[in-house]
């Protein structure tokens, strides 16, 4: 490859360039199709740019403060909310709801996926109903859930758990079914018992699917949280925003949005971190 490259140079240049041309030539040999190394802190760049534009727009008056207050106005509002403790208590309530729903939904999704992934009878009994449930958006069930559980915490947690259950089930089940049958054969020839097979082959094999489901699940949990808190609640970030709307406090609404956004970002980053820690054996385009 390097010879074809240097042959294109004029004869005079060829001699001088020869030693230096080698690394250069190698760099040009083939264009890589995978995206290559990640930009350090790349995820923050786009967000910072957007924030900068917003600040500039507010400062120059291009953005009307009545429809979108300046970033610093929002920071001040957040400061006030923290000072009188409203933000913390509402955040704690919201986080507790989301976490409880998440835990229940993940546990249920995992359990059902394992049963239906490991036994044909289980699959026959479970998979059909779950696919039907999947066709109905969890949020559409809210009226029914209100009639069943009232408008208290139970209804909220159940709604979140249902939203979490589906992606966990679908992706874990998919991961289980996708485990290569050749590994099952291997397990037979080294005479693994069924529990050993589950531990050494099934669970690690389904882990990538589960973690993918986890990322969807976290998003689903926050989404369901927003909805149930705005439908009817007396506490939580969503309630805080609803209240602010009735008083026309747009800065508080935006504080709520920022908090939701940060929660989503942090939880996704957390899942990704776990993903990177546990899936070191994989080499994908993403890494």
């Amino acid at each position, binding site marked *: 490859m390097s010879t074809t490259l240097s042959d294109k140079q004029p004869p005079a240049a060829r001699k001088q360039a020869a030693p230096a041309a080698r690394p250069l030539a190698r760099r040009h040999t083939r264009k890589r199709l995978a995206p290559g190394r990640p930009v350090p802190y790349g995820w923050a760049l786009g967000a910072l740019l957007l924030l900068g534009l917003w600040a500039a727009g507010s400062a120059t008056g291009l953005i009307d403060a009545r429809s979108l207050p300046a970033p610093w106005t929002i920071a001040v509002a957040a400061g006030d909310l923290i000072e009188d403790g409203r933000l913390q208590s509402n955040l704690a309530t919201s986080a507790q709801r989301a976490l409880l729903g998440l835990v229940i939904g993940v546990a249920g999704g995992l359990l059902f996926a394992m049963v239906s992934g490991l036994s044909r009878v289980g699959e026959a009994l479970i998979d059909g109903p779950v696919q039907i449930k999947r066709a109905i958006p969890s949020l559409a069930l809210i009226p029914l859930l209100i009639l069943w559980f009232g408008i208290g915490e139970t209804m909220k947690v159940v709604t979140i758990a249902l939203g979490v259950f589906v992606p966990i089930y679908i992706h874990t089940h998919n991961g289980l079914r996708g485990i290569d049958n050749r590994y099952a054969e291997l397990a037979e*020839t080294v005479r693994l018992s069924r529990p050993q097979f589950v531990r050494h082959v099934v669970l690690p094999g389904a882990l990538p699917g589960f973690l993918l489901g986890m990322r969807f699940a976290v998003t689903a949990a926050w989404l369901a949280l927003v909805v149930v808190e705005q439908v009817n609640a007396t506490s939580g970030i969503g309630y805080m925003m609803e209240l602010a709307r009735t008083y026309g406090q747009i800065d508080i609404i935006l504080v709520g949005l920022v908090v939701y956004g940060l929660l989503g970002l942090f939880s996704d980053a957390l899942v990704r971190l776990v993903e990177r820690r546990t899936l070191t*054996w994989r080499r994908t385009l993403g890494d």
Partner: protein
Amino acid sequence: MATHTGGLTGTEDRGTAGGQGTIEDGGTDRAATVRIGNLVRSFGVRRILDGLDLTIAPGEFVALLGRSGSGKSTLLRALARLDHDVAGSGELAAPDNLSVVFQDARLLPWKRVLDNVVLGLTGPDAEQRGRAALAEVGLEGRERAWPIELSGGEQQRVSLARSLVRDPELLLADEPFGALDALTRIRMHVLLRRLCERHRPAVLLVTHDVDEAIVLADRVVVLEQGRIAADLPVELPAPRRHGSSEYAALRDRLLAQLGVDLAEDGGQA
């Protein structure tokens, strides 16, 4: 021993009838490690194995040749008891303590090399034995590597270590070197030969490569139309190389048995 059906018909059976495939040293009076009688395996209406008989003595290295689609893998999978849904009948006796080397190394990608080797082993010395096995195949120091970080040849060596660490009475290998380049393949031949001399398992090696069969095996059998059509001992002195006239004669016979027209094609590997 797992005996499927019927009584034992093998003529060499003078030892433990239907019992353990024990390795008894010396003497001609040995219990066979593998005894296959009148074995039939079919897919639909096609009989792939059709009344096949084969006996393998303890420590014997048998190479199995046959055209593509002749049923070599089917036979091997029957011996490994991996053919759950395949219809068939016949007598099949093989030790429980057998290992399989697949064409792909078949390492669990989520387990480090050492954990792959000791997969399913129990006992406090499992890890120690695993390390020793890795050292035997020349991979000490790579215990903590992920399978994806190894070359194809290295992966296949790990798979060999995984098989040998179990001290199998029977080693089944289905074209284990088929995916390797010629040089690596020669190295693997030397390694396999050495390991087999040390551990002395009975071996059934499926291969496409007539030279591989002659270089490695004590006996070469050819599968054709569901049966063993040729069964030839390899009685060549230790370093088996191309060129000796015995080697060439055996090679020609095997190739002819496999239906290669030597008048047209003398140099096919």
